[in-house]
Each structure stands twice: as structure tokens, then as C-alpha cells.
């Protein structure tokens, strides 16, 4: 059965473009222009994945409310914010509400599709009971590439999809400097340098939340970042 994706986006052209692209990748796509119609539909049937814009018609932050409501309905539903807003604050707010990823509209359709696929893969991996998946271990760090789960000293670190891919890219080759472009490629995202920097910052903070002495991601000024063990 086709996976169903809900797109809540008030810009019809964009909405249809996303829908067409995702449909081409074999998903069943439902589109909504505002929060109300979306919520009505969700009450009837939950989608398998939701892509939400933050500002919805007359509600400047309708996307946040929608995200909160959706999360209340289902703890596991993958939610992606896709928005023209690119401020730190927006990203932080969105992710704090339980979104799995926060994308700006700069993202290309193939990138979007890759993320959607990744999220579905993770859902599937989580549902598979026990598999000898590819697991990267670097000291206290352990990354399950399939389930997209990261642990530090055995404690799960909740990372967004982008953050996960950044950590994954760094930890795979410890000691190697990854510049920003490489990190963006790994995360299937087009971001500017500042956004990469803030992603890194957020990742560090999440690790430091578990282990205050965390210092494994090092900045190489002017070049990029590297994982040190």
C-alpha cells in the first residue's frame, strides 16, 4: 500500500509541485491549504508523513499549532517543516515541537524526496524487531544508520534528520575535516554557512545535555568540522 503523505501548504503552485514530485516517487499525496481542513482530514485518517509550512493563510504560525496537534494525535508520525523562514528561532521552535526535520524551501525536490524516503526507512527500521544493521561506534558514540538513532554513553540523542546526517558524516571518518559543503551534501540539504554552524551548535548542545564534557566535534576555523575521539 502506498504511503500517504500530507502536504499542508498555503501556496497552491508550490503545493502542487511538491505533490506531483512526491507522487512521482510513488507516494499518495494529499494536499491542504490551511490548518482547519488539514486537521479535519487528519481526524478522519492520519497520514504516514506530514510536510507542513509554518505560515498558513491567515495564521502566521499555524504550522506550529498543527504540528503540536499532530504530535498529540501520534507520537511517531514523521513531521517535516518546509518553510520560507530560515531563522534559527523558527528552526528551534519547530524542532522543539517534535518535528523530525526542518527544511527551508531552498531544498530541491530530489532532496526532499530523499528525506521523505529516509524518514520512511527509519520508521520501517524501527518497526523491524531486531536487525543486524550497520552500526557505527566511535567511543561513547553509537549510530544506527537504519533507525537513524544516535546514542552517547548509551543514552539516546534526539537529532533531527539533518543533524543526524551531519553527525553521521562526521563520525564516519573521525579526524577528517568535513567542510560545510560536504556536510550539506551528506544532509541532502542546501544551507548557507550560518545554518550549518547553527546545526553544529545545536548538535553539540544536545550531546552536552547528556555529557557536559562532550567535545568530540571540533571546529577547524575556516575549513569545517571534524570528529575527534
Amino acid at each position, binding site marked *: 500500500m502506498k504511503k500517504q503523505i500530507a502536504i499542508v501548504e498555503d*501556496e497552491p*503552485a*508550490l503545493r502542487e*509541485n*511538491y505533490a*506531483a*514530485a512526491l507522487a*512521482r516517487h510513488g507516494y499518495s499525496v494529499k494536499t491542504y491549504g490551511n490548518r482547519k481542513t488539514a486537521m479535519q482530514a487528519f481526524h478522519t485518517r492520519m497520514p504516514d508523513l506530514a510536510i507542513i509550512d509554518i505560515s498558513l493563510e491567515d495564521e502566521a504560525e499555524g504550522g506550529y499549532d498543527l504540528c503540536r496537534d499532530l504530535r498529540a494525535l501520534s507520537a511517531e508520525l514523521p513531521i517535516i517543516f518546509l518553510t*520560507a*523562514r*530560515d*531563522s*534559527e*528561532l523558527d528552526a528551534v521552535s519547530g524542532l522543539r515541537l517534535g518535528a523530525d526535520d526542518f527544511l*527551508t*524551501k*531552498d531544498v*530541491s*525536490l*530530489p532532496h526532499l524526496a530523499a528525506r521523505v524516503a529516509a524518514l520512511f526507512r527509519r520508521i520501517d527500521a524501527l518497526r523491524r524487531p531486531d536487525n543486524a544493521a550497520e552500526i557505527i561506534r566511535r567511543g561513547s558514540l553509537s549510530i544506527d544508520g537504519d533507525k537513524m538513532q544516535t546514542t552517547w554513553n548509551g543514552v539516546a540523542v534526539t537529532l533531527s534528520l539533518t543533524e543526524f546526517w551531519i553527525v553521521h558524516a562526521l563520525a564516519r571518518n573521525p579526524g577528517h575535516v568535513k567542510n560545510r559543503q560536504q556536510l550539506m551534501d551528506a544532509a541532502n540539504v*542546501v544551507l*548557507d*554557512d*550560518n*545554518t550549518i*554552524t*547553527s546545526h553544529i*551548535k545545536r548538535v553539540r548542545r544536545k550531546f552536552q545535555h547528556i555529557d557536559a564534557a562532550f567535545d568530540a566535534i571540533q*571546529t*577547524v*576555523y*575556516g*575549513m569545517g568540522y571534524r570528529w575527534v575521539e
Partner: protein
Amino acid sequence: MSIRLQLLLVALTTLVLPWAGCEYARELESALRQSQEQSLLASATTIANALSAQPQRVFHDLSDAKPFSASAGDLYVYPLLTQPLLDGYRDDWGIAADPVPLPTVTGYRARVQAGSTERFLYLYAEVDDAHFEAQPNNAPPGQGRFDRVDLTLQGASADARSNYFFATSAPGLIAAQSVVKGDDGTLRVAAEPRIQAFWLQTSMGYHLEARIPLSFVGPHLWVEAIDGRGEGRSGIAPTANPEGGRLFFTTAGLDAMLSTFIRDGTRVTVIDSNALKLGSAGTLTATPLGESEDKGSTWYRFFLGIDTSAMPQVVPAADHLSGDSVRAALLGLPHAQWVLVPASRELLLMAAAPIAIDGHTHGAIVLEQAADQLLALRDRALTRLFNLTLIATFLSVIIMLAFATWLSVRIGRLRSAAESAVGSDGKIQLHMPESASSDEIGALARGFERLLSRLNEHTQYLRTLGGKLSHELRTPLTIVRSSLDNLESEGLRDDQARYIARAREGTVRLQSILSALGAAARVEESIKQSERVNFDLRDLLSSAIAAYRDGFAGVRIGLELPPDACFARGAPDLIVQLLDKLIENAVDFCPRGGAISVRLVRSQADYLLEVGNDGPLIPAALMGHLFESMFEQRQGRDDKPHFGLGLYIVRLIAEFHGGTAAAANRTDGSGVIFTVTLPLI
């Protein structure tokens, strides 16, 4: 011309006050003078009328109309107040006037003066005669040659003349001598002991002071000094001038009578038709001009003083009066006039009225009054007025000056505030001094404030324009790009794919433009989110510069670091961004083959991060604007979009760290240096 100077000049116009005061005082003085003239003239006329009623108490001889003539031997007889000592000196006569010269034809000079007491006529003669010829023993004139003075007195009748002469064998007290014919027909000399004289020999000649009883004296006399060596004579002789010199006596008792007419400070003088004084009473209490009691009042006379140059001058004489008034009165017209006595610089009011008897003017009465009282009055008024107006002027000038200073200080403050309102960092100072004042300057300041706040709004708008634009354009761009993505996925013919590729290139460029436009907004955003940590600037620089050297292979990047670690507090990521912008900027402007120099210096209070390049110098006019948002003066074209945000971002980051950003041309003109200061920790 500064406002202060202008107002000072305006204030000087108050000098018209003292001027007006002076004019007023002048008029006042003129009116006072006229009234004084009139009252004195009225007094003079009154006295004249009184005197003309009793002519015998005023005039000796009403018939004598022949004018006084010194050359004819006429002598004015000064009234002597005391009995002089016969000693050959006339100092004790108390008469200021000099003796009058006797007529001479030979150049032999003699001077004579007459005075009288109640009983005696005194004659004083000064004869210039270098050689004294003594009288041989009782030799009569004509026998032997000796210096002598002939004196011929006319008795009561015109025929009865007595001839005397004065001569001596030795200076000293002598008696007059007369020549008598002896019984034997010889001429001999007889002494007249009632006529005493003193012969005093001087270096110039001799003095003769003689005392003659008034009973000997008639209306006429002849005086002649004769040189013993026959070299000359001076005076008049009965043979040559049978009429002889007349004696003009003052009128006895007249002084006492006159003194009843006058009050203090006024002098009354009665003159005869020759203007000779017949009697006078009263004294003047004149003070010379410029010596009045108030010293302070003298200085302003320097430019306010009575104009004495046009004033008629009168030289006082002991025996007569002169002046226009006297002349007019003797012609029968009362007249009053202000006159100046040049020798003593006294200002006098002279009022003269004729004394007419039976319609014929026989003399005049002259009243003289000093201008003192008038002057004092005027001086007081004028000084007071002058001082007051000067003080007023002075005060108004001071006040004007203070006011002008205050005004110009305020305007200056406003001006300097206006000049520095837009700082070199592009920050706008919205508050102007003086804006709370309710006057025009306050209005001007408020006008400035409105202007600046509009400018600020505009600047803010410009500052946020990039972010807004990039935000607003993002959605349509995404529509285009996602449509292209979809189109591509549909499967395209080769020619279609070409166009799609071009369209995609366009969107990529648009994307980078939008990204550049929003850069400042994003930096501002991340500054808000930034956490400050301690980091080593030196490490950061060496690591970053190494990366730039790889990234920009075409240019040489020199790095100069201090030997020790340089800890700073802030966001190292932002510092890297700052460095990115500075290096990008330097690379853009650095000519091919040029070098970029990066230097970190630790000064007393700051780290100085200098990024220099060999590029073209910055024009002075642009210097202050480089770090403003959306300021772009780049001439060349390259493939990257420039919105003038790079250096603005540098500034934002420097300011976030409590530092500054500045640009300067190298002193040797070889390029430019951008300097960022960051505080030490």
C-alpha cells in the same frame, strides 16, 4: 560675521542714548545761559538807570568827551588801596597792569604808571638807560649833563604850571627839584620837599617812584625822561605838547556805592566812555574750565565740552574793560555775551548797559558773572545722565553679548550635533540638543530630529530590505525551481533539457543573490543566538588563514601573529565570518599578483586585527560609509552578487564583540588596511 559680532554691533546702537542725553544737556545749558544772560542784563540795566540818576557820583567831568590817548600822555590813575612805600618798586601798589610806555622818537624808552590814594598821587617811571649820569651838585638842567625826569603839573588854573624835575647825584630817597631864578639872575635849583621820590638804580636803567600831594595835581601833567648824555628823551614836554597828558581818576566812593547793588559772585564795574574803570565792586568766583570740583566730569568734556574756539575772548586789563558788550554799551545798546578769558580759561558772562545822561552815553555799567554755577549745574546733570546712559549701554552690550554667546553656543551645539548625527559607522543619533526649547532654535532642533528619524527609518528600511526581499522572493523562486524539478522528472527532449538547464542556472543565481541579500539579516539573527566563549584568536587566525590560502590560491596571504596566545571572548564562528568577509573583500580588491597581509597586534586595551591589501585607495568621501548597510561602490563586475553587506557584517560582528571596524589607506599609499579592534579579556 558671527552672531555675537552682529549683536554686539546692534548693541552699540544704544550709544545713541548718551548722545541724545548730551544733546539734551546742551539744549538745557543753552537755555540756562540765555536766561542768565537776560537776568544779568536786566540787573545791569537797572543799575545803569540808578546810576544815571546821580551822575555827579559817577563821573568827574561830564564834558570831557576827548578820548583817552596813551600816546598823548594820558594816564589812568589806579586807585591804591594802601599807602605804598617809596622804595623804587611798585610791587606794593597791587596793580597787575604793567606801566605804559611814554611816547618817544629817539628810541629812548621809558614807562610810567600812576596811582592815587586819598591824599597822594603816585608816579612810577621805569627808564631804560644803561649809563647813569649823576647830577652834579645842585646843577640845574642845562648845566651839566645828567639823567633826569621832568614833571610838569598843572595847577587849579590852566596857566599855573609848576615845573619840577627829578635827578640825583646818588640813588636813594630824593625830593623834586625846581629851577628858580635867583636874585642875581642866575638859575639855581631849589628842592621841593613835599614831592618825594625814590631813585632806584637797576641793571637796565633806573626806577623812579614819586609821591605828589593831590593838592599839587591838576587835571593835566607832563612827564618826560631825558638822557643825561643827550642821546634821547621819552615822554611829553610842555613845549612840544602844550595840552599835556590828562589824568583819569576813578570816582571816589563809587566802589562803596556799587557794592550795594550786587550779590556774591558778580562783579560790577562802571566805565567811562573810554571804557576806563571808574569804580568796581564784587569779586568773581570763577574757576577755570577743566578744573571744576568733580574730577570725573572733566573727561567727558573731551568730547562734550563747550566749544570755546568760537567764543569771543577777552583779555582783562586793570584799567579798562573790553569786549563786544562794552563796545555796544558805550554805543548806547545794552548787551550781554559769554566770553572766555584765555589766560585763565575762565568763562564769563558779561552784561553791559549804557549809563545815559540826558540822552548821551557817558559810560556804562558792566556786570560780570562766572559760568561756574551754570557749569556746575550742567556738569552735574550731564555727568549723571552720561554715566547712567553709559551704564545702560554697557549693560545692554554685556547682556547682548551674553545673549549672543548663549545663542551661538546653542547653535554651535546644534551644529556639531547635526554634523555628528550620522556617525562614521552609519549609526544615527536621533536626539538633538536644544530640542526641548520652545524657541526657533528648539524648532530647528526638532526639525533636525524629524529629519533624522525619517533618515533613520529609511536606513532601517534599507537595512532590513535585503532580508525582507530575500524572504519574500524565496517562495516564488521555490515555485519556479520545484516546477523545473518536476519538469525534469517528466523526461525531456534534448532541446528542452537545454532550456531547463538554463532556467535552472538562472534560479541558482537568483538563489545566491537572495542568499547574499539575506546575509546581514541572518548574521543579525545568529548574533542574537550567539553564546560567548573564550577562545584563542591566534589559533583561530592561523587555522583560518591556512584555509584561505588553500581557498584563494591566486593571492598571497601574509600572516603576522603575536608570540603568545591571544584570548578573546565572543563567538569564534562569528569572528571567522568576519574574517571571511574581510578576506573576501581584500581578495576582490587586491590586484593580480598583489598580497594580502593579516596581522594581529595586542595593544593596551584591544587586539588589533588588520587585513591589508594592495588594492586601490579608498576615496576620502567614501571612507565613512564603507561599513554601512547596502553601501556598494564596486566598479568592476564579477559573477558574485554584491550588496554592500560584507563590511556591514564585519561591523555588526565587531560591535557584537564590543569592538570597532575601520578602514584607512596605508600612509605610503600602497593600499588599504581594514582594522578591527576586539577587546582584551
